[in-house]
């Protein structure tokens, strides 16, 4: 029988290996999935993992997809380290896009160099506002932030849908539930593609988060709160402030990501804007082991898979849900592989002794 034995020191080697093992397992499971769907598995995998890298268009689309994933996951990762479970990034993303986008629609058709920065600020504010609700309720009313932040996502998505069906609908349009196109767009970084400055913003966020977590006392406090809440209390770290910080940071990142998505590749407000980025970012955060650099790599990888998945969808008429299934499996394998960072599997012949007898023997020694 295999038993798990705690390691004295977490294994660094396994720490680096775990994501690779998870990817390999997800790869194998993905092949099985596609085979079960009656598609040639190797060909599907090749389409998903290699095809997007073969063209400039593919690579630039990966950057577009990776931007919100990385930005949101960076914020979430900081909170997850502190044991603050903001799983409502989808809602904060939506409200950020809504608030930032509303500004453009409000001043339409006026435009200027100031418009995009102001929209970005409002996007951050919108995400923070939506995250402030679970922060307030957890610190003041002791309410579980997991449930509140998630339930608020549903509210936010419905709110976006209501507003794009009503007040924000394009007055010159054909009654489709969508706003008019923004009068301004994010600057493109690779000419001829959709890759926009948002990706640079995401890179900056990675760098800032790395500085915060590795070189600031605040980063250390967050880590202690997550790993040893009692120690954090004894050390006098103010828990409510750390909770507020984690939620506002992750909310602000998600809000900014939402605005960048609306003002970048989409160019308007549509009900389908959120598209699951807030949830996929949770996978990214874990796959990146909650480390900024890891999140950067994981975000690019997940973006590659979704772009490749889209290509496979078209080429092999694969159902769109197969990529969501794949992401879920990815997270499963990552969590499973992660266990071996702190535990070592040990083969042990089965013994019949009851736990009672064993602890008695231990006490006698």
């Amino acid at each position, binding site marked *: 029988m295999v038993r798990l034995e705690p390691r004295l020191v977490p294994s660094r080697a396994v720490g680096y290996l775990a994501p690779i093992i998870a990817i390999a397992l997800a790869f194998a499971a993905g092949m099985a999935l596609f085979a079960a769907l009656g598609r040639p598995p190797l060909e599907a995998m090749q389409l998903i993992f290699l095809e997007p890298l073969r063209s400039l268009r593919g690579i630039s689309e990966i950057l577009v997809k990776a931007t919100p994933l990385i930005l949101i996951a960076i914020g979430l990762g900081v909170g997850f380290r502190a044991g603050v479970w903001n*799983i409502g990034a989808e809602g904060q993303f939506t409200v950020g896009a809504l608030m930032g986008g509303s500004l453009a629609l409000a001043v339409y058709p006026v435009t200027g160099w100031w418009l995009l920065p102001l929209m970005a600020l409002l996007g951050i504010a919108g995400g923070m506002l939506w995250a402030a609700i679970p922060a307030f309720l957890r610190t003041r009313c002791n309410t579980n932030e997991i449930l509140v932040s998630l339930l608020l996502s549903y509210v936010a998505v*419905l709110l976006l849908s209501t507003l794009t069906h009503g007040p924000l609908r394009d007055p010159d349009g054909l009654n489709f539930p969508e706003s008019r196109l923004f009068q301004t767009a994010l600057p493109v970084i690779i000419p001829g593609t959709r890759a926009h400055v948002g990706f640079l913003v995401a890179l900056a966020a990675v760098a800032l988060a790395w500085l915060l977590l590795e070189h600031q006392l605040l980063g250390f406090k967050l880590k202690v709160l997550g790993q040893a809440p009692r120690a954090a209390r004894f050390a006098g770290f103010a828990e409510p402030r750390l909770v507020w910080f984690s939620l506002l940071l992750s909310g602000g990142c998600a809000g900014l990501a939402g605005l960048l998505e609306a003002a970048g590749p989409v160019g308007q407000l549509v009900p389908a804007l959120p598209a699951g980025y807030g949830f996929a970012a949770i996978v990214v955060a*874990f796959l990146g082991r909650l480390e900024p650099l890891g999140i950067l790599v994981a975000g690019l990888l997940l973006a590659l898979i979704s772009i490749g998945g889209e290509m496979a969808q078209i080429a092999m008429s694969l159902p769109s849900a197969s990529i969501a299934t794949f992401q879920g499996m990815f997270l*499963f394998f990552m969590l499973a592989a992660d266990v071996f960072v702190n535990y070592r599997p040990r083969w042990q012949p089965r013994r019949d002794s*009851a736990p009672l007898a064993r602890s008695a023997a231990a006490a006698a020694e």
Partner: protein
Amino acid sequence: MDLLSNILISVMIAATPLVLAATGELVAERAGVLNLGVEGMMVTGALAAFAALMATGKIAWALTAAVVAGTGMATLFAVLALSLRANQVAAGLALTMFGLGLSALAGQGYSGQSAGAFPRLHLAGLSDLPLLGKLLFAQDGLIYLSLALLAATSWLMERTRLGLILRAIGDNHDAAHAIGHPVLAYRYGATLFGGAMAGLGGAYLSLVETPLWAERMTAGRGWIALALVVFAAWRPWRVLAGAYLFGAVTILGLHSQAFGIKIDAQLLSMLPYLVTIAVLVIISRDKMRMKLTAPACLGKPFHAAA
């Protein structure tokens, strides 16, 4: 009077999937396992039930399939969170994502089909009683099943030795281990029971409430069920009160237009989520009471060595 009785019936129908899923999750949480994958287990159960009904035409098979699907999903979670000691919050989220994805994938062929009306109980004489007859004696069998399962769970958790052991494990797994109870085995059992109940809750959605299959048709009900467990302070009978209150809010929202209240329908569909949050806040406000009612080892991994 007919309108009132119709409204009450729709309240019961809206509440039943929540009663089922929350009862199962309550048992798991009482044993110290926080499974955030309820949404994923429910949606898989919904699809499994619908597919089995389409294939066999038998309700018994549909329910069996839902239970098997829910239990299977819960097994994935249990292996990850109990045997491998992964973080329970993350493992639950993974289960929800996986369940939503897998059911959408496997259910493609079924979208748009209808299961047809679910048979209702008819007791000669009783069901034809004026006023209460239809309400009490002419519902679909699953509503009675949900109430029976809730009653059985309540009795089991609060009146039997098994319940006592489960609660002991949820409150102090080290002590329970020390007196010889196999903590992991009990937790596996509780988690799988939670999965089976969530599967049944999903089956109710796709067989009775909206007799069809649609991607993501649970629309957050798994999360609301999780909130109901907190609302119920981990006591089975309060789950019933919470679920019916919740059902009432949903249905009143839907019917408010009939009463002449003019609010946008989409705004009204936010109501259930907002009410759930409000109720959570009211219940959790007293920090001391929460500490006393919540299972002390909720969400903590157990390893025998410590």
